[in-house]
């Protein structure tokens, strides 16, 4: 993963200012030209229903007149509506924190629509009565408004400002939107008392300039003014295409053009200095200082209640299974994922989030000679852990690293019922996760992507009758991540009947005698077995049989001709599928599909399919597919797409039998 991030950074550094917007506009508010109003398509994307002609996002982190630190954001957007569907851009809803401590507000909302009527430009301004502010939920307030008089052809200007006392939370400022962007500018202004880490993300590129200006703030008459320099980083981008959804992508915004700011330190000479997590070791120390690690070794009523129940279990794995069972029996997972446990509260309320469950299980284990330490994870669905973003909030979830008395090491997410030891939800299979040792030593990184060997093995033993009926026995054995996936699929169905209906639909066969061993157990293995009945196509003297009743790849996965996001597979694959069929003595093999082997080196993937007769009245087929790597750059898309098509063609194979 590291090399892809590196290339993005290089791209930014090497950007020149040669970019130019394809629609020349004056992006000063109110300067809407006749040409903008009369344009009826966007040349760079003629399918676009609207185009963002201009977007400016100005962020300022500084002192106000009362010397309070504030972050203000001023947003300006100019849309051109090109089709009916593009009218949606006129509706805007903005959320902000309801908690008064953060002093957040949205103000200065100005919305103007421009239309061309009878050769003249007609403007319609949004009345303040049509700006609605209300509560959205316990945590958020909402401002909603909708531009007036919007038609196909309209140009809409939207302006507003936002302020917050959370001055350092600049976060990610996205340039790219779901509409194509003609010209965009992001500026971030901040007093030189602040230092920020900055990270540009996305497949498109910015040009960039920097300015500095000296300032002074006089808070009270007669008091020495506060003097500082204001720095301004300006990012420009022209002709940015619209974002599109793509398959095999955990976090699409990783490819969305934007810039991320993270506060590194505040230094007001002679008055104040605060360094914000300039190294991971500093982050570790802060976690330890805040008592985070202690929350994983809390003695409480539950831990003491569990001890007698596990007494006498000598097998380490069985003991871990027993402890986990006791923990989730006593405290129900509320479905929420978090990083900060509150063990006492969860035990008292008998319900808790993922971190609470980890905290409880670790507390039990740490009291009986095991070592259970928190492992901080940035979920794949939240993006890649940026090397520069050195802060506690870089992570969003916690799992456990457990070292047994004999020295075996396991990683586990206590809350996930379909996972196991060294089997994690795919969202947590990341290259870098940070272990905070329970000993309160400094942390270190671990790679969670290949903790266990996954496998999917399916055997289909079939018998053909002379009337064309095929009866068979299917057994599917899954291990580790594949087992987790199988159990997840089963639990996603409303009940067993619905699951079997789905099987029948995908297999095109009737299913009976279904059993699924292990689906309710916290274990690394599950076994599905069932009988299938289907019919071969019979035409004259020929009988046609499809050896694959399941496809492991679909052309639907990579249907789009182009791709922007890297391809991010869930986990390595190791699939074995075997099929054997016996047929009546009055039939012979007329034609077998070709045995073949294909490979795709860039994913270290290969597929082998072999067909062979079994005596005079049978055929056997084995199919093996492996893929070692999980990440592929978008540049390799066409190659992987062809590989996928080749894989899919394997599944269409047909065995031809002929009546003697």
């Amino acid at each position: 993963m590291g090399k892809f991030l590196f290339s993005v950074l290089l791209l930014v550094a090497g950007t020149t200012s040669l970019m130019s917007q394809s629609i020349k506009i004056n992006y000063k508010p109110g300067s809407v030209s006749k040409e903008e109003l009369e344009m009826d398509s966007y040349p760079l994307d003629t399918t676009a229903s609207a185009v963002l002609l201009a977007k400016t996002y100005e962020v300022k982190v500084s002192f106000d007149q009362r010397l309070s630190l504030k972050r203000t954001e001023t947003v300006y957007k100019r849309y051109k509506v090109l089709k009916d569907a593009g009218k949606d851009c006129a509706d805007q809803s903005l959320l902000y924190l309801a908690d008064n401590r953060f002093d957040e507000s949205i103000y200065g909302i100005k919305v103007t629509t421009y239309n061309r009527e009878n050769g003249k430009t007609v403007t319609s301004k949004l009345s303040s009565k049509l700006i609605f502010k209300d509560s959205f939920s316990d945590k958020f307030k909402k401002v909603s408004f909708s531009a007036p008089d919007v038609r196909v052809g309209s140009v809409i200007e939207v302006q507003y400002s936002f302020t917050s006392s959370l001055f350092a939370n600049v976060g990610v400022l996205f340039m790219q939107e779901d509409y194509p962007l003609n010209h965009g500018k992001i500026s971030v202004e901040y007093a030189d008392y602040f230092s920020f880490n900055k990270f540009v993300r996305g497949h498109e590129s910015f040009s960039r300039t920097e300015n500095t200006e000296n300032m002074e703030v006089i808070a009270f008459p007669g008091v020495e003014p506060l003097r500082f320099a204001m720095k301004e980083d300006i990012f420009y981008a022209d002709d940015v295409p619209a974002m599109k959804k793509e398959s095999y992508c955990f976090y699409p915004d990783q490819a969305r053009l934007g810039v991320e700011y993270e506060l590194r330190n505040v230094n007001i000479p002679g008055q104040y200095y605060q360094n914000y997590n300039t190294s991971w070791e500093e982050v570790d120390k802060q976690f330890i200082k805040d008592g985070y690690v202690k929350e994983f070794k809390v003695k409480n009523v539950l831990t003491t209640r569990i001890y007698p129940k596990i007494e006498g279990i000598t097998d380490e794995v069985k003991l871990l299974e027993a402890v986990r069972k006791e923990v989730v029996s006593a405290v129900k997972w509320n479905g929420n994922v978090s990083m900060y446990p509150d063990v006492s509260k969860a035990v008292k309320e008998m319900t808790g989030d993922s971190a609470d469950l980890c905290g409880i299980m670790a507390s039990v284990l740490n009291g009986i000679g095991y070592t259970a330490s928190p492992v901080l994870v940035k979920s794949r669905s939240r993006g890649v852990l940026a090397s520069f973003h050195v802060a506690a909030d870089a992570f969003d979830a916690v799992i456990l690293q457990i070292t047994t008395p004999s020295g075996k090491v396991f990683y586990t997410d206590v809350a996930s019922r379909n996972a196991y030891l060294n089997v994690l939800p795919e969202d947590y299979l990341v290259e870098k996760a940070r272990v905070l040792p329970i000993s309160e030593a400094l942390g270190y990184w671990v790679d969670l992507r290949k903790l266990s060997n996954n496998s999917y093995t399916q055997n289909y033993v079939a018998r053909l009758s002379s009337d064309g009926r095929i009866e068979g026995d299917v057994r599917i054995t899954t291990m580790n991540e594949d087992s987790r996936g199988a159990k997840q699929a089963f639990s996603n169905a409303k009940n067993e009947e619905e699951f079997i209906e789905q099987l029948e639909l995908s297999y095109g066969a009737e299913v009976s005698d279904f059993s699924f061993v292990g689906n309710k157990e916290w274990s690394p293995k599950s076994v599905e077995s069932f009988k299938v009945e289907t019919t071969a196509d019979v035409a004259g003297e020929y009988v046609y049989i499809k050896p694959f009743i399941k496809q492991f790849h679909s052309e639907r996965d990579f249907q789009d001709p182009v791709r922007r996001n890297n391809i991010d597979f869930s986990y390595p694959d190791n699939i074995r599928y075997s099929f054997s069929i016996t047929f009546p003595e009055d039939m012979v093999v007329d034609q077998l599909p070709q045995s073949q082997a294909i490979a795709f080196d860039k994913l270290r993937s290969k597929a082998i399919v072999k067909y062979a007769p079994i005596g005079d009245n049978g055929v056997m087929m084995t199919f093996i597919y492996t893929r070692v790597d999980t990440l592929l750059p978008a540049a390799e898309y066409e190659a992987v797409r062809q590989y996928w098509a080749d894989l899919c063609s394997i599944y269409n194979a047909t065995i031809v039998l002929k009546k003697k």
Partner: protein
Amino acid sequence: MRRILTVASLILAMLPASAQDKLDAAINDFSEVFKMDSPTSGTDKVHKSVTVFNEDGLLSASFVAFTDAFRSVGSFSGEVVLANGKKVKLSKKDLSFSSMSLGIADDSYAVYLTPVFNYPFTVTYDYTIEYRDGIVIFPIFQPLLQDNVSLKSASYTLMVPPGTEISEHSVHLDYSFEFDSKRDIHKWTIKDMAPLVDEHLMKLDSDFLPMLYAVPVEFSYGGTKGRQSDWKELGTWLNSIQDKADDLPESEIAKVKELTAGAGSEFETVSRLYSYLKEKTRYVSIQLGIGGYRTLPASHVVKTGFGDCKALSNYMKSMLKVAGIESNYYVIHTDREDFFGNLPSPGQMNHAMLAVPLKENGDTLFVECTNPSFPLGYRHSSCARHEILLLDGEGGQKVRIGGYPDSLSRKTREARIALREDGSAHIDIKDKRMLDYSEALVNFSSRKPEDQVKFLIRDWMLQPENVKIDRISDNFDRYPEYGRDFVPEAEVDFSMESRNYANKNGDRLFFPVNPLAKSFYYQRSERVNRIYRKEAFTLVDDYSVVIPEGYKVESLPADASFESVWGSFKSSVKVDEIDGTILHINQTLVVPCFDEPASEYPSYREFSKKINKLYSAKIVVSKR
């Protein structure tokens, strides 16, 4: 603690263990008492006890109260009892709230709590909802909300001042009445209701689940007064709250006159204004205070260019009035065809539209002002055959919008497939849709190309690439030619490539008869409910496949034709007689409406299997 254990054990003991294994939840007790203090105020007091057996039953155990300008949560307390006897108290501070807004402004909120504990557990709630500033509908009573949940007992008591006239519609409830000097007391009860089994091809849940919908005949609401003893009175009230809503400014009146000047017919006048509506407006929801029933004035739409269904219908009506054409505003429920029995009340509709009678041909246009891309003269699938409350000068009247013959709901795919020796193919398709099938192509050109393609090829077994849309056409503006016989039709011509249309196996090519067809769903389990289909349809697939030069047909599926109460299906594959290189495939499925007993399901299952087999049958061609 001993007492709590006893209670928990009793609750779980109500159901046999086998039933507990299968049920998602059990409603042990649900009692609701609404006490109407005055025409504008009242208190709804609810006691509810639910045992939850798994996470699918959580909906039944959740507390949800909808609040707005007329309702708020008063008191709230609760208790959860776990299987081991432990108990957890719940209070108002445990409640969360979330905006219900789908538009830019809405004063509705959901106040909610979902208990999360290890199963099984029993939760009991006691709460009140305070009503103020008017009561047009009493609290709706729905003790059972989902399938696979049993109901032990439930009751709804409505206490109103003596002589207060009410009307109601109830499903699966027993009724009793008593009174004293201070109250009239209406009571509805139900006991021991078996869980609903959710299956495909069945009527709406609302036809199966117990429900009470009651209203005061005379009411005060948001500073207005009205009566709803019949549809006429209800219409009178709805008319009264829309008073002076047709306030088009002079400039807009002039614009309407300019737009309609010289129109050769009433329809042309309506059509010009409908186009103007499409060009000028869009749907944006604003629901504040009485705004759920009252439209924003026409001047609002003129000023902003947006409004909800009520505001846009009112605006269109106002413009038509200026142009000299009378029209009728009406309200409708877009899912349910029928109103609740003969219960006039405003809360059972969810949409407003406009009826425009044309004197010139005696037809009435049912105009969808919320989406003016719908063809004028077409009664779309969410309004055709539905009951509506039509407002007129006399008040209101309940009428039913006419439907269309079943045979007109039709989709046809004509495809020409040029198969290559490596199994790939070039495919040209003409996708023709009539009536409700054509609705998906309304405003189709405006959709993103990737969304257009996804729509066209969804449900296909085939996964094509390089899909190019060559032509989109329709007859949506041709009402004047057909008048009341107008039926919308739309057509998309598109082409594509397939790398794996056929599988090459030595000298043979294998390909499916109909790779564009969708499998017919049927359930495995024993049928419980009647088998009901409301919409009829016809699907016609007509393909020609040109096989590669030097190949001959080795195997074709046999022709088939069968018919039953579930529909008819015909399948034929013919080889071109001249040189044998072109195959003609025709598969036609006609499915009627039906309402058959559950015992007939095996026959339906067999019908579906036969169709699936014929859709997925294979053709084999081999080198000569």
